[in-house]
């Protein structure tokens, strides 16, 4: 069984014990065949030192729990191939959010912004017996939007979200806002656009596309934000 040693530099902070965060150097033996993803190695690291804390759940890029800053770029540990990583692998919590412990951040602000865009279908007409149908073309509009797993990789790589997390909705929230604006079954399009037409909520986005660069699902929040702006222009001129 072929093994090799991997070097890690991991952000550690336990507010009950540490006065300040520090970077811990750790090395670990990895199996060249079975250890493929960063999460596999984190599991081994956790077995070696059980004080190391991080979130994880599905281990296949669906739940969005194990988002972290990997060698300076946000991503999901479970989708990151270890063979692509430069060593020592530097692991930090997602930037811009308060650290609870080690790689775990407080996502309250992120979800507050997500909830602010009313992430549910608004339709006051009586529901039909089975379901509200869409044409395949209308349904097509939701592709590239509904896949968001709310891992927060995008919003926490966005400087506008770092500076104004309390006022700027952020790329994840705006992508989801457009998901409902684009939905032909939703009747609150105007109210949604009114809510977003704001110097802080929407227009803090300066289209630098950090969000697109990091999205582990390959989504494009900048494009969705552009489409929201386009709809506002069409409505106004």
């Amino acid at each position, binding site marked *: 069984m072929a093994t090799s040693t991997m070097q890690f530099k991991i952000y550690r902070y336990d507010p009950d014990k540490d006065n300040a965060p520090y970077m811990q150097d750790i090395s670990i033996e990895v199996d060249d065949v079975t250890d493929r993803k960063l999460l596999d190695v984190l599991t081994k690291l956790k077995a070696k030192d059980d004080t190391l804390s991080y979130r994880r759940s599905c281990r296949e890029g669906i739940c969005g729990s194990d988002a972290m800053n990997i060698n300076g770029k946000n991503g999901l540990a479970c989708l990151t191939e270890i063979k692509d990583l430069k060593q020592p692998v530097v692991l930090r919590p997602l930037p811009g959010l308060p650290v609870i412990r080690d790689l775990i951040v407080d996502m309250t602000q992120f979800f507050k912004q997500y909830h602010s865009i009313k992430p549910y279908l608004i339709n006051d007409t009586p529901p039909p017996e089975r379901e509200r149908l869409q044409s395949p073309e209308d349904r097509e509009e939701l592709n590239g939007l509904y896949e968001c797993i709310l891992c927060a990789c995008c919003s926490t790589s966005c400087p506008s979200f770092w500076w104004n997390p309390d006022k700027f909705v952020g790329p994840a929230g705006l992508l989801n806002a457009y998901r409902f604006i684009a939905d032909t079954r939703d009747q609150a399009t105007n109210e949604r656009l009114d809510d977003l037409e704001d110097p*802080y909520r929407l227009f803090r986005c300066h289209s630098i596309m950090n969000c697109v660069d990091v999205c582990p699902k390959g989504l494009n929040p900048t494009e969705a934000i552009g489409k929201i702006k386009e709809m506002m222009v069409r409505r106004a001129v």
Partner: protein
Amino acid sequence: MLNRIVVGAGYGLKDWIAQRATALIMAVYTLILLVTLGALSPSSYEAWRAIFANGFMQFMTFLFFISLFYHVWIGMRDIWMDYVKPDGLRLMLEIATIAALVGYAGWAVKILWRL
């Protein structure tokens, strides 16, 4: 009450469009200026003056400066909004920006029409 986060001023689209429109005007003016300077290649003060004594060039140059100042206003306000947290200080900086840009606009008129 004082610490409640208030957001929802309900503007921004007009400025976002204006930012793009003014950029376009500035790009067109840059082309006109480059073509004019290339065609006439003024080598003396008088030749240079003659270009800007032309009514069309005065109009376009003035339009360029107005576009530039409006563009700068939107950009500077963005910077203050991004980085300056105390509301009072931000308001002061925004007022100072407007004051400077209005002053520059008057100055541009004075230079262009030799008032």
